């Protein structure tokens, strides 16, 4: 799931005709101050990182003059927000509002169809509203065969009690749905959608997440992706074509198949270890992919030991073993201890081939994980 930054999503929304505040992206304090001066005070200075609750974490500041703008930009740029460094801020016109609404579209996976949502209680985390007062969110399921009918958008807005602004909000919701469908979004939302004293509406924030599997037909969005990636290793995984998630532990995990890799993580935890990552190299086990995967995990400073867990299905275990030997042979020294567990077709043949000078070989998933956990503990 590719997340667009706020400023990217706002660009997409504005192009589709949704009103947004004037804003400029800035990557330095000077740029931010210049932007604030040209927009006119008060402005909001907003960290562009993919972190929920930016505001509470100090990533959004409202400033009244140049001096405040300078100090806010200085504080936010370079700030660490939940592990991510802030490289850019959006400097944005501060909007006077009387109400904050929520509008969004997402996939309801249990229904197998999209759902549009409207709430008069925007401006706070909508999932909190959903938990506390589910009736405050109006949901309208959309038939993917026909798309969202205009009446559905109106019905959602009127049912949410939006009265005078209902038809304008309905128009925004229709546009959001059209974007959702046209851009292969997985979720899209405006929170808050601000209502001004004279009943103008304006999108004060913008969220848009796009289906990775559909990026092939959206060159424009794919071009935003590099910019949007937040983590060096995740960017690298993208290049290698791995499914990769960084975690906080020190046991590196490589395996084939999402369910099996997740299970390996869980078993690391079960034996008292802490997984450093999820890395699925997918089907097959060509030497190059094995080498790339090891390269990634070796280069993660947090990793102290690695468990390499392959269940050879159609792929034969002896071929996997050759791939591992070849891949590890490319390293002059093995920087971190690697425990390999090979199972499935021709697994015993594979285990015999594996170069035990480079890796430790274990027969079962459980023993391999235990070995890797012990290795990781030993380094501390």
């Amino acid at each position: 799931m590719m997340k667009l930054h706020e400023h990217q999503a706002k660009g997409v929304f504005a192009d589709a005709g949704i009103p947004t505040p004037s804003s400029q992206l800035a990557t330095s304090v000077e740029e931010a101050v210049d932007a604030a001066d040209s927009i006119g005070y008060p402005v909001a200075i907003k960290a562009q990182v993919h972190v929920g609750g930016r505001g509470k974490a100090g990533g959004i500041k409202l400033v009244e003059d140049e001096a405040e703008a300078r100090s806010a930009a200085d504080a936010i740029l370079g700030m660490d927000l939940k592990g991510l460094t802030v490289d850019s801020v959006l400097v944005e016109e501060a909007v006077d509002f009387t109400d904050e609404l929520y509008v969004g579209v997402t996939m309801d996976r249990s229904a197998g169809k999209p759902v549009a949502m409207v709430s008069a209680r925007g401006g706070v985390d909508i999932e909190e509203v959903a938990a506390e007062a589910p009736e405050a969110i109006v949901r309208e399921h959309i038939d993917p065969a026909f798309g969202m009918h205009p009446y559905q958008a109106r019905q959602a807005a009127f049912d949410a009690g939006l009265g005078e602004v209902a038809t304008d909000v309905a128009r925004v919701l229709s546009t959001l749905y059209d974007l959702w469908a046209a851009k292969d979004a997985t979720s899209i939302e405006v929170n808050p959608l601000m209502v001004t004293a004279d009943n103008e509406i304006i999108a004060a924030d913008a969220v848009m997440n796009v289906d990775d599997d559909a990026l092939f037909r959206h060159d424009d969005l794919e071009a935003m992706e590099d910019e949007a990636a937040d983590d060096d290793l995740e960017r690298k995984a993208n290049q290698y074509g791995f499914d990769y998630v960084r975690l906080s532990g020190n046991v590196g995990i490589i395996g084939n198949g999402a369910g099996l890799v997740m299970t390996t993580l869980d078993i690391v935890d079960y034996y008292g270890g802490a997984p450093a990552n999820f890395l699925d190299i997918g089907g097959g086990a060509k030497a190059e992919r094995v080498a790339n995967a090891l390269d990634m995990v070796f280069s993660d400073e947090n990793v102290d030991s690695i468990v390499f867990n392959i269940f050879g299905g159609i792929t034969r275990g002896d071929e996997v073993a050759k791939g591992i030997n070849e891949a590890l042979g490319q390293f002059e020294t093995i920087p971190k201890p690697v425990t390999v567990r090979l199972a499935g077709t021709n697994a015993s043949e594979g285990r015999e081939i594996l170069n035990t000078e480079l890796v430790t070989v274990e027969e079962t998933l459980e023993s391999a994980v235990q070995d890797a956990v012990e290795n990781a503990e030993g380094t501390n």
Partner: protein
Amino acid sequence: MSVLVDDDTRVVVQGITGGEGSFHAQQMIEYGTNVVAGAVPGRGGETVHDVPVYDTLATATTEHDANAVVVFVPPAFAGDAMFEALDTDVDLVVSITEGVPQQDMARVYRRLGETDTRLIGPNCPGIITPGQAKLGILPGNIFESGNVGLVSRSGTLTYQVVDNLTQRGIGQSTAIGIGGDPIIGTDFIDALELFENDPATDAIVMCGEIGGEDEEAAASYIDQNVSTPVVGFIAGRTAPPGKRMGHAGAIVSGSGTGTAESKIAALDDAGVPVGDTPSAVADFVEETL
């Protein structure tokens, strides 16, 4: 006995001339599956592994009176291929393809509800009735014919669990990989119903994972409708919220739905023992039988 596929299943392979399609068609044939034809536009008249290829799926299924289709086409074209398969009115469509865009699948799912066809997948390893037929990419050699029905959202995890079972001499009636995507044709409840009604299935293993609420729904279904003993496994206990763990469907939402805790608790409430590891699952099955 078995569910959905057996010796009489007559299979057309969509995309049989591609790398994956050709390789796995051969594997299926070697396993004994009755692969009657292939379908690839522009390749009509050729043969692959002695199987005739047709330009359109409609011709292939009609000419060979096929009742099942396996889809091996690239993700960009898989939605179209599934619509094509649904429109042939075969009984079963198994879609192996991983990476089908979610909105394409939502449209297929909408259409599926209007048909009498069963869809398994996409993004799944397929289905196997050991000793009779396999439709998909499951490694036939790890399976043994027996009395345990298996349903799973994951591929290699299934192999791991099956391996643990087979090594203890516990065979399988049928194993169904329902797939790791958020929107799939056959869900846990569908599979549980099939196994519950299959006289040859004496126990069921259900391998779930984080994401969505299908396991919770299945637990409640088991509580109400399933008398066959069920053993569970849930992958992804250590997955952080908001991160997709490989499978498009394996994601815990920011609001905390789709967690392993919730699923394990639901299964516990339904009286389904949940193994901490695949071998613990096999232990429970062994105790049950």
